[in-house]
């Protein structure tokens, strides 16, 4: 069977005609498979949703328990047969519950990466290589300028700054789902034992992570308190909150942002970031290459991001490549969402 008969792009998202199902559709559809809980991939209002139990739980926190007409959980490695198409989910290492979607029909196997990373992350299962004929990859950081340092290296940079300015509050902008909890877990691994304070927008998802067995230690909601109370503290908030009056409650804060985009100086400066932390939940340039080779796929389709560069590299390796230019993804890590 031709890969395009198994999956092809439509304005709503990647479509599987056999199962009449869309993967990460950007508008409401009858049947959806959701790779992970970020708002650009997981939207409310579908007829029925297939996803990992963690992703379903995340969607329930974000959109309310009735976010879809029906829900079905699929564990990593479990298989579901829908009208001749065999679906399975495989860990993507991106955030809690994130999955790659494999679809197999007529002897051809297509894997949709969703968003993924290869770096270790204490808050989610590690990436699993899913061999396939066609690999449909994201390309958020698909340029040779993106070489992400280890998260530990960046968190140590944060701790060094805290040690240098013990009287100031360090505010770290981090996306509410995944990044914030990863920063917390990395802080714990690096020996930060004091309470971590968080903006209200981070509370629910952090509680969810804890309830699903991710150890994050003492995490407290930022309360009204004298400015001096937060001297020397580490506070996490959504990146957007850094530009709001909310930050005025802290004394002479140092603003940090944890994002792969921090690799580019202009990006950091556009947001007024003083302490850029290059911590990304996406694969960097070399990990994208490694993963493509690991899957053994002869054909690579690219969903969103720097598609032209990745397609060029694939062709230089003798792999067929095409950019799908899917619209509507990538908002979660873009500064425009901040």
């Amino acid at each position, binding site marked *: 069977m031709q890969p395009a008969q198994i999956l092809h792009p439509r304005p709503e998202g990647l479509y599987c005609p056999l199962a009449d199902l869309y993967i990460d559709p950007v508008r409401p559809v009858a049947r959806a498979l959701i790779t992970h809980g970020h708002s650009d991939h997981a939207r409310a209002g579908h007829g029925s949703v297939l996803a990992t139990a963690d992703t379903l739980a995340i969607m329930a926190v974000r959109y309310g328990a009735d976010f879809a007409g029906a829900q079905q959980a699929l564990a990593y490695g479990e298989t579901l047969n829908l009208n001749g198409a065999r679906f399975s989910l495989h860990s993507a290492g991106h955030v809690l519950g994130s999955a790659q979607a494999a679809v197999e029909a007529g002897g051809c196997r297509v894997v949709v990466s969703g968003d993924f990373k290869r770096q270790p992350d204490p808050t989610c299962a590690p990436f699993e290589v899913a061999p396939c004929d066609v690999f449909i990859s994201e390309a958020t950081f698909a340029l040779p300028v993106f070489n992400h340092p280890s998260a530990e290296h960046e968190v140590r940079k944060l701790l060094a700054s805290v040690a240098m300015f013990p009287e100031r509050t360090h505010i770290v902008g981090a996306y509410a789902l995944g990044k914030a909890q990863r920063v917390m877990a990395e802080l714990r691994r690096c020996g930060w034992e004091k309470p971590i304070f968080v903006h209200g927008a981070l509370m629910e998802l952090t509680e969810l992570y804890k309830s699903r067995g991710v150890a994050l230690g003492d995490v407290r909601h930022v309360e009204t308190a004298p400015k001096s109370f937060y001297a020397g503290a580490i506070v996490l908030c959504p990146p957007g909150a850094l530009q709001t009056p909310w930050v005025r409650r802290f004394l002479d804060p140092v603003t940090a942002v944890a994002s792969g985009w921090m690799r580019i100086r202009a990006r*950091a400066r556009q947001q007024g970031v003083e302490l850029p932390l290059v911590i990304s939940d996406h694969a960097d340039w070399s990990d994208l290459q490694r993963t493509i080779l690991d899957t053994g796929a002869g054909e690579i389709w690219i969903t969103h991001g720097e598609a032209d560069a990745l397609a060029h590299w694939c062709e230089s390796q003798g792999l067929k490549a095409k950019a799908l230019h899917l619209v509507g993804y990538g908002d979660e890590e873009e500064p425009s969402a901040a």
Partner: protein
Amino acid sequence: MNRFAALLDRLAYEPRRLSKLALLETYFRETPDPDRGWALAAMTGALTFKHAKAGLIRNLAAGRTDPVLFGLSYDFVGDLAETVSLMWPANEARANAELTITDVVEGLNTTPKDDLPARVADWLDRLDENGRWALLKLITGALRIGVSARLARTALAQFGGKSPDQIEDVWHADAPPYTHLFAWLEGRAEAPSTQTLTRFYPPMLSHPIDPAEFAPLNHADFSAEWKWDGIRVQAAAGRDAGGKPVSRLYSRTGEDISASFPDLVAGFEFDAVLDGELLIRREGRVQDFNTLQQRLNRKSVTPKLIAEFPAFIRCYDILALGDDDLRALPLFERRAKLEAFIEQHPFAPIDLSPLIPFDTWDALAAARADPANGGAGVDAEAVEGVMIKRRDAPYLAGRPKGYWFKWKRDPMVIDAVLMYAQRGSGKRSSFYSDYTFGVWTDAGELSPVGKAYFGFTDEELIELDKFVRNNTTNRFGPVREVTHTRTKGLVLEVAFEGLQRSTRHKSGIAMRFPRISRIRWDKTPKDADTLEDVSKLLSLAPEAER
């Protein structure tokens, strides 16, 4: 390079002016000569290298990286030095310590042209990512770390316990690496001599004003001149300590631009400092800015270029005459001295910017509305408004309140449709921030009429960028085509200063200073203006009054 690279890195991320000053001051205090002087030169734009240019870096990058990937990366990052420093294949990074900024500057100045690429490549291999970035920044010149030359000199003043104006006054008396200047600031030497009179005075700048603001003011306290649409310059000439004639031409920011205007500088046979506008005159009439720009855009200054674009300075102030600093005198007294001076130097490439006679504000408004009949005559097309100056004002550095005002010509405005968008550079890198817009032709098609890349707020930029990404219909390298049918697309209100017939543009017209004045989310493309509407404005534009 360690210390210099760390300084640049911290400055780049430090948003607060006071903290930037503190960082610079500490650097000047802790860094020995001549390293600190070379760093100062880099930050004030005083360093150029004959052979080490951006092209050299491009070639090096081309040799070590895939050209397509390099092009895409450069387009994304928007800064050559940063792109190469991030992409340069990492050699197990060795410490930067053994390489100083002085080694690099001297190396760049003395290495033969043919050996330079290998030399720079060797340095890049020896530096870590931040060191590579600092090295490449030195070569490309555009530091983009949020430090102006003025800020660097303010830090220098702070370091030496002087006022910024004291630094400005002696700035041109020393040259990189400024060892004499530092010796003076540390109390180890006399101030560098400014006897040569080739000094630069920080210019006096004006505030925009509208009629409501000056209506209550007494018109008799003010004089008015045309606001000429050229480039603001300072002409300084005199004799050096040895009695040899010296002449210099400075830009508004104090950059020495003598080399670009040898024809002008050769004619400065006087002992004075003059403030005025550099303009082009052909066949007895002053040309508009478009013409001047054709000369400014050329890299090499040839006799042909000089003959084709004869430059002169239209003067409106005199700051020094012989050894006398005139800046404390009131404007009307300086004006009298200037008029006498111009009269005594009939062969110098200078003339006098005339006063606009007016006895009421309404009379001035009438002159501004019609410069050709208001006194500017054949030169009207180089007028972009009027300047209003207090007659008793001294000449003060910077933009003091209440003395000088500019009342610019009203901009023209059209509604156009966004057609293409391109990624910006520098601060805008990765945002689609350059917009090509069009208006409707008789045939019912959109014809591009201009390109604008400012006028919007940071929040609006985010919205525009999002619109472009979500409504892309085609891609051409860094350019995206955006939906622009009669019913779907984005209408932009575009303001501009002037309009010209142009054979180089498909639409037949060229705009001057176009900018986005409003985003018309409320309009659909079919509501936008037509080429005919725009052509009507052409007859209103002063450029058309030929």
